[in-house]
Each structure stands twice: as structure tokens, then as C-alpha cells.
């Protein structure tokens, strides 16, 4: 393979070698089912590993270990909390269909789950978001209804990286008697995520966004009685989530959480500087360029820019030819030929949305990667603009 500068860490990240090493024995000699720990020494090894991983994840988000429920990733966690919490509160507290508040620019795991609830007769409000890419807590306050049972607003947007005022929104939700969920897939291990400081009842995160393996994540559940199980099965995870534990994946997630917590302060500073340097260089070499969403209230690993007069598709392909991997919308809807729903929700017109690219960074991103991108991208923009 030729030189690859990977600037798509918001889509996924490579497994850290230390994470991989920690996972390895759980595929082979430590293969046992952790649920057999009561009578099996090998089961106990697996059980201990799962519980250690749980403690590591809890430590990353400031929760108690028994509030960390392992899932298959962010999408499952989002599906589960929306469907499980809205249904339970509606059935047991309201005795009629409840109301969910979320935002127009959420990940499709939330949006499509919300639409599924709507089809089943629940009420849903999709909050509009302005050019800043930041939800106004007052808009949530105005959307609250007597039957609002859940508010779900992402901690940081996956395309533009803007950080949401979750603590304030959680207060609004609680004042109105609703529970609060945040999708922290883009923030966990990147900025401080503390479930108590945020005041949330539920929080989703996914291992592969911070150098853990794919296929494993968690839902933080403050109170086990606040939602119905989503995957019914054996008694795993306090009966909240059936299915044999993905032990190796869980061990990997735990290790990634531990490393993420250790690295966070340094990485926050490093990636912020690196991101700003790239933007400054691009802005000095390309005219008619602007960031999408607020640049200050933004996760360090995200840069989303629109470049007037170009279509992002040929730009991304030309970048790929030059060895630079980036994204248009998010990887999850890379197959859409339509413009990003996130950018149109914050007020970009279709043309602006289609002239935008997302560059995202991670632990593996180096200064050289940034310099190469800053060197190559302006020439490709000139190439495309020269055709018009």
C-alpha cells in the first residue's frame, strides 16, 4: 500500500497494539464463558477480566461499575435507550404514549430509532440547531411537554464536532420530569466525560472511536429500573442485555478506556493545536473557506470545512489518490448521494453541504500527517476550481 494519511478517525480508529495484546488471550486459552464463574476456574478468569474492564470504563466516565452495561456498540446503545426508556416510562408511569425530545442533527442511530418510536405512536420532537451547531437549552425547555419522558442530545456531533451543553439540558429535562440521555461516542476519551457532572441518566459510548475494537460499547444506566431490556436472553448484565459476553472485545474496550483516560489531557492539548494548525494553514492557502460549526466549543479531533466552488466527492477522491483519507458526511452515510443531514440541519444550503469535508484526528495522527494534508489539499482545490 502506498502512503496513507488517515484523517478519518471520527469514522473509526485502529486498535492500539497494547489493546490488541490484552485481548489476544481471550480468543484462545482464556476462552471461557464468564457466566460459568461460579463453578469454573476458567470461567472465573473471563469473569474477572470482564469486571476489570467494567471498572476501567466506569473510571473513564466517573460512574459506578454496575452502571456500565456492555453492548455491541454505540448504535445498539442508542437504540436500546430510546426504545427501552421511552416504552418503560410510558407504560409504567404515564400509562399512555410518552414524548421524546431529540435534535435534528443526531446520528442516524438516534434519528432512526426516534422515527421507529414515532411509527409506534410515541410523540417525538426534533429540535432545530442553528449555524453554531450547538443546541440551545431554551429550545429544549420550550419543547418540553407534560408527557416528555426522555431527552436525548448528543454530547458532540459526529460530523462537525460541536460540544453540546449537556449539563444544562439535563437540568431542563429533570425539571420537567424527564430522563436524560447523551450519545458520547465522539467525546469519550477525547474530552472530559463525567456522568455526574453531565447529570445524565444514560450515556452511550463505543470502543472503536478511541483505539478499542469494533463491535463493543456500553450504555451507562444510572438506574437499572429505568428501562426495559432490548436484547432479551440469559441473565447477563443483570438481565438487562442478554447474549454471551464478547469477552475479548470487552477486555479491549476496558484497556482502551484505561489508555484513553491516561492520554486524555495530553491528547486534548496536542490534537487541539494540531487541528488549529491545519485549519490556519488551509485558510491561508485556500480562499473562500470556512469552518462548519463553532470552532471553540468543539472536540479537538474534528475539523469540518466548506470550500466554496468545489464538490466534496471529487475532492475526496482526489485526496484519496494522493493518499489522504477523509470524509464528506459521516462514514455511516457515505453511501448517500444527498448532502449531509447534519450540515443542512444547521442551515447550510445543499451547495454548501456538498462542498464540505470532515477531517478528523486521533492518537495515531502525527504532525507530518497534518503538514502533508496542508501541502496537498490546496493544490487539489485549485485543480477542481480551475475546471469551473
Amino acid at each position, binding site marked *: 500500500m502506498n502512503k496513507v494519511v488517515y484523517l478519518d478517525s471520527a469514522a473509526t480508529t485502529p486498535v492500539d497494539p497494547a489493546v490488541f495484546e490484552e485481548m489476544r488471550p481471550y480468543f484462545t486459552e482464556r476462552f471461557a464463558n464468564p457466566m460459568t464463574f461460579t463453578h469454573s476456574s476458567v470461567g472465573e478468569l473471563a469473569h474477572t477480566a470482564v469486571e476489570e474492564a467494567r471498572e476501567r470504563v466506569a473510571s473513564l466516565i466517573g460512574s459506578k461499575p454496575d452502571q456500565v452495561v456492555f453492548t455491541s456498540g454505540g448504535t445498539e446503545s442508542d437504540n436500546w435507550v430510546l426504545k427501552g426508556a421511552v416504552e418503560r416510562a410510558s407504560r409504567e408511569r404515564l400509562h399512555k404514549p410518552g414524548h421524546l425530545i431529540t435534535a435534528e442533527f443526531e446520528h442516524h442511530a438516534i434519528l432512526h430509532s426516534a422515527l421507529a418510536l414515532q411509527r409506534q405512536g410515541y410523540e417525538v420532537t426534533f429540535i432545530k440547531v442553528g449555524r453554531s451547531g450547538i443546541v440551545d437549552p431554551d429550545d429544549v425547555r420550550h419543547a418540553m411537554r407534560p408527557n416528555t419522558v426522555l431527552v436525548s442530545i448528543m454530547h458532540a456531533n459526529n460530523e462537525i464536532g460541536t460540544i453540546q451543553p449537556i449539563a444544562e439540558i439535563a437540568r431542563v429535562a429533570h425539571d420537567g420530569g424527564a430522563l436524560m440521555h447523551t450519545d458520547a461516542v465522539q467525546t469519550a476519551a477525547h474530552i472530559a466525560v463525567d456522568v455526574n457532572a453531565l447529570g445524565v441518566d444514560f450515556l452511550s459510548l463505543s470502543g472503536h472511536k478511541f483505539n478499542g475494537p469494533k463491535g463493543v460499547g456500553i450504555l451507562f444506566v444510572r438506574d437499572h429500573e429505568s428501562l426495559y431490556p432490548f436484547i432479551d436472553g440469559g441473565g447477563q448484565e443483570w438481565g438487562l442485555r442478554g447474549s454471551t459476553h464478547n469477552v475479548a472485545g470487552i477486555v479491549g474496550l476496558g484497556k482502551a478506556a484505561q489508555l484513553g483516560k491516561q492520554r486524555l489531557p495530553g491528547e486534548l492539548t496536542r490534537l487541539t493545536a494540531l487541528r488549529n494548525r491545519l485549519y490556519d494553514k488551509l485558510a491561508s492557502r485556500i480562499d473562500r473557506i470556512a469552518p462548519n460549526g463553532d470552532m471553540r466549543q468543539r472536540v479537538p479531533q474534528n475539523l469540518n470545512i466548506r470550500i466554496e466552488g468545489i464538490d466534496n466527492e471529487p475532492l475526496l477522491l482526489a485526496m484519496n489518490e494522493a493518499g489522504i483519507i477523509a470524509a464528506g458526511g459521516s462514514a455511516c452515510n457515505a453511501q448517500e448521494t444527498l448532502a449531509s443531514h447534519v450540515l443542512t440541519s444547521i442551515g447550510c444550503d445543499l451547495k454548501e453541504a456538498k462542498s464540505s469535508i470532515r477531517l478528523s484526528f486521533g492518537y495515531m495522527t502525527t504532525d507530518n500527517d497534518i503538514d502533508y494534508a496542508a501541502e496537498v489539499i490546496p493544490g487539489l482545490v485549485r485543480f477542481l476550481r480551475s*475546471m469551473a
Partner: protein
Amino acid sequence: MDKYSRATIREFMSPSNIGHIDDPSGVGHITDNADAVELTFFIKVDNGVITDAKYRIAGCTALIATLSVLSRELPGKTLEQALAIDMNHLSDVLEGLPESKWRCAGYAIQGLHLAIDDFHSRSA
């Protein structure tokens, strides 16, 4: 969305005939904000035969590559032969353009047809 062929990528990375014709016989112009397309297609016609074709384009990869192929095929063709060129043929030259991209790539043919219409209205 399917992947683009290598032929399409090669074509769009070094497109033929970008530019404009100073004294065109016909010009076709298309703006579509929803598709973020801005296309101007120029033809030069001599004795009913196209002698030159150029274009200016802001648009997607498929459209750039399709315009490039189309512009190379036009010189020497009568207007009738030019009007007979379709997406099936252009897609074949590009070693298979993903079908999801045919609508957008079709602006190339529309641009040519508008330029031919313009030629007819000028000579009427």
C-alpha cells in the same frame, strides 16, 4: 453507491477539453443548486459537423469524467450522430459508471443537447 472504476478516476484526474471556445457555434448552460452543478458546454460546428467541444464544470466526479469522454468523442461527428450518443455508451467507455451516478452524469448529455439547440436557434 458502487465504487468508481479506475478508468473513471483516471479520466476525472486528467480531464480533456476543459475550457471555453472563443467564438462558439452553440452554448448550453445548466445550473442545479440541489446537485451543486454548474456546467457550460461549448461546441463549434462547421458544415453540420462538430469540430470542437469544450466545457467548464463544477460538479461531481461522474459528471467531470463523462464530460471529458463526451468532449473527446464529438469532433468529426454530425449533429445527428452527436445527438445519438447516450449514457450507455459513455458508461461503457468509463468501464462502467455506477448507476446511481447516471442521473448526475446525464447533465453532460443535456449540456450538449442545449448547445445544439442553441446552435439551431442561432442559425434559424
